[in-house]
């Protein structure tokens, strides 16, 4: 059941090329209130615990609130302007995009490879599946602490392994958390490590829905493995790849935990992302208004990105 289908006479179903025929199964007049009623608890939850607080956060961002003071005075866009003037904010903005995009591209590649591999039967597949799922099952705070030690300036397990594999020399000891470029790479690594199992599973799900006949037909026509991969499989997988990309992007873009625990913005505030910098400014340093302003920069971007992805996903699947 991977394509929308419509029943036709004779008890069969036919594919629907375009819209999802919802109207056929719409609400009956007697059920006019049932729909909204069933929707109500969810809407209530969201209004009370997300929308309401969000409006308050919006208000904070145009006020001079601090963590220590109850009085709020309206200051207009001052917080946003001041935030944009801060060089740390600008680097946080860039980093947020950079980390997310690079991490997700890597996740897509790694996730695809993993999914293709896990699809085949082989001995020990259950064990492999379990091990591959572990990064996703770990609470992020604990995983990040573990990685912090693995990148440690003295005891780094990563460096030890690189030395043993003769990838780095005996006197080299890259400071994974001490040099801006390496620190960024470390943050990206942890994001990739944490998210790729989940993407692999999503892609694996997509793979299982590709009809085998199409692939076999192509093989019979003489297409090689890579050709089949790139010209048939990946195009057919596009909607699911888009979904996996979207999910992963959302997790990474808004995430504060990895940066906060792993580097806390170090070296000298070069690895902050918007959410961790917002936390630092708003909560740790006490300027709540500015912290809210910084965090709110996430929203428009996410909205645009998410809507784009969703449109892309639905268009791709219907073959437009």
């Amino acid at each position, binding site marked *: *059941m*991977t394509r*929308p289908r419509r*029943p036709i006479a004779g008890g069969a179903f036919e594919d629907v090329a375009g819209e999802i025929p*919802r*109207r056929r*199964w719409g*609400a009956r007049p007697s*059920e006019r209130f*049932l*729909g909204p009623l069933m*929707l109500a*608890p*969810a809407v209530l*939850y969201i209004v*009370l*615990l*997300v929308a309401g*607080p*969000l409006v308050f*956060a919006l208000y*904070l961002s145009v006020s001079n609130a601090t963590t220590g003071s109850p009085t709020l005075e309206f200051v207009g866009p001052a917080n946003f302007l001041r935030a944009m003037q801060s060089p740390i904010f600008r680097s946080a903005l860039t980093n947020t995009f950079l980390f997310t995009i690079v991490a997700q591209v890597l996740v897509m590649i790694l996730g695809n490879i993993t999914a293709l*591999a*896990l699809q*085949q039967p*082989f001995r020990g597949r*259950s064990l*492999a*599946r379990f*091990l*591959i*799922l572990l*990064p996703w099952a*770990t*609470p*992020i*705070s*604990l995983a990040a*602490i*573990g990685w912090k030690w693995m990148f440690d300036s*003295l*005891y780094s397990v990563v460096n030890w392994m690189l030395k043993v594999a003769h990838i780095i020399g005996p006197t080299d000891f890259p400071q994974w958390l001490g040099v801006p470029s390496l620190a960024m790479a470390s943050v990206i690594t942890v994001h990739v*490590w944490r998210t790729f199992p989940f993407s692999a599973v999503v892609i694996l*799900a*997509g793979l*299982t*829905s590709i009809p085998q006949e199409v*692939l076999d037909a192509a*093989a019979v026509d003489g297409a090689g*493995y890579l050709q089949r991969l790139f010209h048939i499989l990946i195009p057919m997988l596009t*909607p699911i790849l888009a*979904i996996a990309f979207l999910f992963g992007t959302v997790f990474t873009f808004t995430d*504060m935990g990895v940066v906060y625990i792993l580097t806390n913005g170090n070296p000298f505030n070069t690895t902050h992302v918007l959410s961790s910098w*917002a936390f630092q400014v708003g909560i740790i340093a006490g300027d709540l208004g500015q912290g809210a302003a910084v965090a709110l920069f*996430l*929203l428009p971007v*996410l909205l645009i990105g998410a809507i784009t992805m*969703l449109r892309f996903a*639905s268009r791709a*699947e219907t073959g437009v």
Partner: protein
Amino acid sequence: MAVAERRIGPPLTALRIGGRALLYLTVVIVTFLASFPFIWMLITAFKQNSDLYNIKNNPFIFNAPPTLFHVQLLFRETLFSQWLVNTALVGGVVVIITLLVAVPAAYSLVRLTGRWGQRVGIGIFLTYLVPPSLLFIPLARVVAELSLQDNLWALVLVYPSFTIPFCTWLLMGFFKTIPGELEEAAMVDGCTRLGALWRIVLPISVAGLLTVVIFAFTLSMQEFVYALTFVSPSAQKTVSIGVPTDLVRGDVFYWGSLMAGALIASVPAAILYSLFLDRFIAGLTAGALK
């Protein structure tokens, strides 16, 4: 073997052996990348401190005899077992709440609300994108007003605010793939709409429901900003915040116990997920493609 074996084409013998080797190599590399931190954590949890803090030592073997000291510290000096129970409890109740709220909502958006339902669905998903680091201040007020401050139930109240949007959208996609005839037929036979939902749709959707369960549980187990803000008594903490609190004292990290804690918290969840993986994939296949 519920995960179907898809081959990218009919195998040729020579290619098959080469392909097989490549497959195993890929699997080994990927599995290693995912799991070497855990192997290292496992060893570290049992290493003596003098072994652990010696730069020259191989981190993957026991240079001094292994010790149970860190694990004992974890269980005796901290309330780790309580935190595990708390985490499981919060996760479980959040899952139930999510199911109870998201299932009717998703069904309603797909069947009963027409065109604007799709838009509301996307809108609901988008609220997931609002980060906790922004919301936790106003939510602290809400929690205090309800006298739930420093209580585990504050987390149970707040976590569905991000699991519900996500899972509603997921379920919507899944329900769309179920042809409406089944419910129509049942209702023609005298069933109510809700009865149709309960008796027809849900049994088919077990995979989708399982997806929701796994997502909601993962999201609530991982969460740490709200857990930090709303709960400070040790007995009410979850693993995600309890372990860093008690095992990081000032500038001293109790690495052995930290790693033991990380492992014990993750392994059961990973086992559960991998058991459900087949069902989970079936759920995602149908749900996500729409």
